[in-house]
């Protein structure tokens, strides 16, 4: 089955210490002619320096509008195995936790219906099954869904929410990222599977401002854990860090962005009212410093890739809110955000782009959040500003 192609270029990429994707494709190619043709076409791309994929057509499973990315080789005669080579997006578990048993089951099904190649995971978070044919899609869906797995999103829909490991292992998690992500994914099943939005909508949840899931850069809604109140300090541990050679002044105090810390007589003091909760000191002195006790989240909106007006990072909309099961307040505000976007956006306009065009005010008014200095880096520079009738009544 395998070895149909000579791949001198790709073979180069089996050398060296980093694990080789070429080796992976070859492994799959031993069992799958699709994977073998993928290898052949890829070698050709390496020679000619271009891809050979057509634009995807719309393929999918009954009742769903997304979850499968249609993909066809533009050289189907030369590489018949990948004439169809669709990817299937499967909702990953919150925090990407698996058991060997579950993963092996996933593999078994995939070997049966697909190329045997996967992406663990896609950039949005899905468990991506790489390469199958249109006729296999319903079977794949039946096999996975009957075992408790569902499809991820694609097209103008909610996309699979994703999160950091959070309380599953991390001492800094201020919110239950895993549970929030699970709950939101369940809440938005319809929006996930039946594209009816102006464009994609992504949600990512990070347990703290360290943001190990890149929420602030890659999600239309970024939920980031934080706290109110004082950073908890264990002065005995501070002394141990000093004892073990840490230059506390240079590494911690001097790098605190708000200059709200000081270190004297072997003790750290923090002026918490001035702390911006940036996480630096906590991250670098994890045994000595811990987040404050009143936990909650900051909601930020709008980040995306540069197409077409330049990249956006998410903007602070709600500086602090409690986020606790059953997450009613969170779900309500998300629905309200989406509603505004849905009503306001042109097709293929992300929420961040609309917000930039329309300004913050109509959005904040719609979702019922007051203007707050936390929402801006600095107030406006120009003297051109709008007044609404409601402003005059005050």
């Amino acid at each position, binding site marked *: 089955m395998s070895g149909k192609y000579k791949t001198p270029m790709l073979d*180069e*990429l089996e050398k*060296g210490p*980093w*694990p*080789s*994707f070429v080796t*992976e*494709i070859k*492994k799959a190619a031993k069992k799958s002619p699709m994977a073998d043709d*993928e290898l052949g076409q890829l070698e050709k791309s390496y020679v000619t*320096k*271009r*891809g050979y*994929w057509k634009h*995807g057509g719309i393929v999918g499973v009954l009742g769903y509008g997304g979850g499968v990315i249609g*993909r066809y080789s533009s050289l189907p005669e030369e590489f018949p195995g990948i004439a169809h*080579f669709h990817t299937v997006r*499967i909702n990953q*578990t919150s*925090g990407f936790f*698996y*058991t*060997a*048993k579950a*993963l*092996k089951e*996933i*593999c*078994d099904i995939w070997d049966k219906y697909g190329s*045997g190649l*996967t992406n663990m995971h896609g950039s949005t978070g899905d468990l991506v099954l790489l*390469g199958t044919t249109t006729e296999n899609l319903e079977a794949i869906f*039946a096999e996975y869904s*009957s*075992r*408790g797995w*569902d499809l991820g999103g694609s097209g103008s829909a909610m996309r*699979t929410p994703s999160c*950091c490991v959070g309380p*599953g*292992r991390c*001492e800094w998690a201020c919110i239950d990222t*895993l549970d929030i992500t*699970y709950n939101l*994914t369940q809440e938005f*099943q319809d929006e996930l599977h039946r594209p009816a939005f102006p464009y994609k909508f992504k949600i990512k949840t990070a347990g703290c401002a360290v*943001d190990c899931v*890149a929420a602030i*850069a890659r999600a239309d809604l970024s939920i980031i854990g934080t706290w109110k109140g004082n950073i908890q300090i264990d002065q005995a541990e501070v002394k141990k860090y000093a004892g073990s050679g840490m230059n506390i002044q240079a*590494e911690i105090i001097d*790098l605190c962005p708000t200059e709200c810390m000081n270190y004297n007589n072997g003790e750290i003091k923090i002026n918490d009212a001035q702390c911006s909760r940036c996480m*630096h000191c906590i991250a670098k002195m994890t045994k000595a410093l811990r987040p404050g006790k009143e936990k909650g989240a900051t909601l930020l909106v709008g980040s995306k*890739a*540069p*197409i*077409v007006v*330049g*990249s956006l*990072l998410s903007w602070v909309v709600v500086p602090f809110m409690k986020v606790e099961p059953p997450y009613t307040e969170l779900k309500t505000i998300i629905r309200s955000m989406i509603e505004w976007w849905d009503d306001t956006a042109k097709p293929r306009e992300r929420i961040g782009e609309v917000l930039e065009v329309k300004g913050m005010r109509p959005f904040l008014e719609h979702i019922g959040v007051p203007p707050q200095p936390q929402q801006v880096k600095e107030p406006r520079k120009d003297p051109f500003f709008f007044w609404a009738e409601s402003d005059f009544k005050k």
Partner: protein
Amino acid sequence: MALPKRQTDIGPPKYDQFIPPVVKKNYGKWKYHEVLSGGTMVHVAESGDKLYTVRVASPRILSTETIREICDMAEKYCDGYLRFTTRNNVEFLVSDQSKMEPLLAELKAKKYSVGGIGPRISNVVHTQGWVHCHSACTDASGLVKAIMDDVYEYFTTKELPNKVRLAVACCVNMCGAVHCSDIAVVAVHRKVPTIAHENVQKVCEIPTTVASCPTSAIRPDPKNKSVIINEDKCMYCGNCFTVCPPIDIHKPEDDGVAIVVGGKIGSLRTSPKFSKLAIPFFYNEPPRWPKVVAAIRNILEVYAKNARKHERVGEWIERIGWEDFFNLTGIEFTFQHIDDFTFARDTFRTSAAFKYSK
């Protein structure tokens, strides 16, 4: 064979079925962690319980065969519990410290790369490339392999001033985190697309196509039932190609990649930052893109040598100034570096204070 009964709108299985008992017991009650080596760490709960993690590199494209091999090891050493990271590494979640050594030994024997923890380079966030995407202007997996082979020591053992996050995007859609990475590669076109006029009317909606262009370079060509591109305005983003495939943006001989630097995501110390252009172009040189790899190593080494402890690449550059970044790395400054797009105004220097170039 009959298919099992399909279910819809069930969402993913709940995470609690997959977390090891020690996590279940200490869920949300972790106290601290310690980095034990370049690829291992231990998290200690308030209860005193410990969870060991062994992180292993992954090429992200995984065959089911490899996944099974990983699963076998997970079963052998950690009751089958494992996870993937947000940067696509594999993590073995070990509750029993005595299993650590044999696990590490087996990983070593099987040539797995343990690393990525602490102030190091971790896996490269990247996307499909020629492997699967019609839009790709380079290959992502190949670039990643070439880069990681070269900087491998920084994954496994060697420390840097802080974490250095790498990313590769195979087109300007940037399905990765290129726009906020310490050092990243993004594929770019440099020529105006050519239009297969005869196909435009068959496949494309003219108004959508015209509207797709961010620089308003496209106007309808009613005579040919096609569109015309104003060469002076086109900046080769390929958005027209996304909505109208007969507008071919691919020019293998002129396409290549750019290197951007200085982005970051976390809010620690300084605000999240976008990456900025460092080197506007390298030709695609598969299979190993040697010039790209060398350029990344150069930037990395200049950073390692000059940055202060805990300084991310972008923080270091902002402290010394971009003038000095170009000075120190020896990278040439070109017209392409000067923004002429959305943010241009805000990037022009409006101060009499700056450093000279050498």
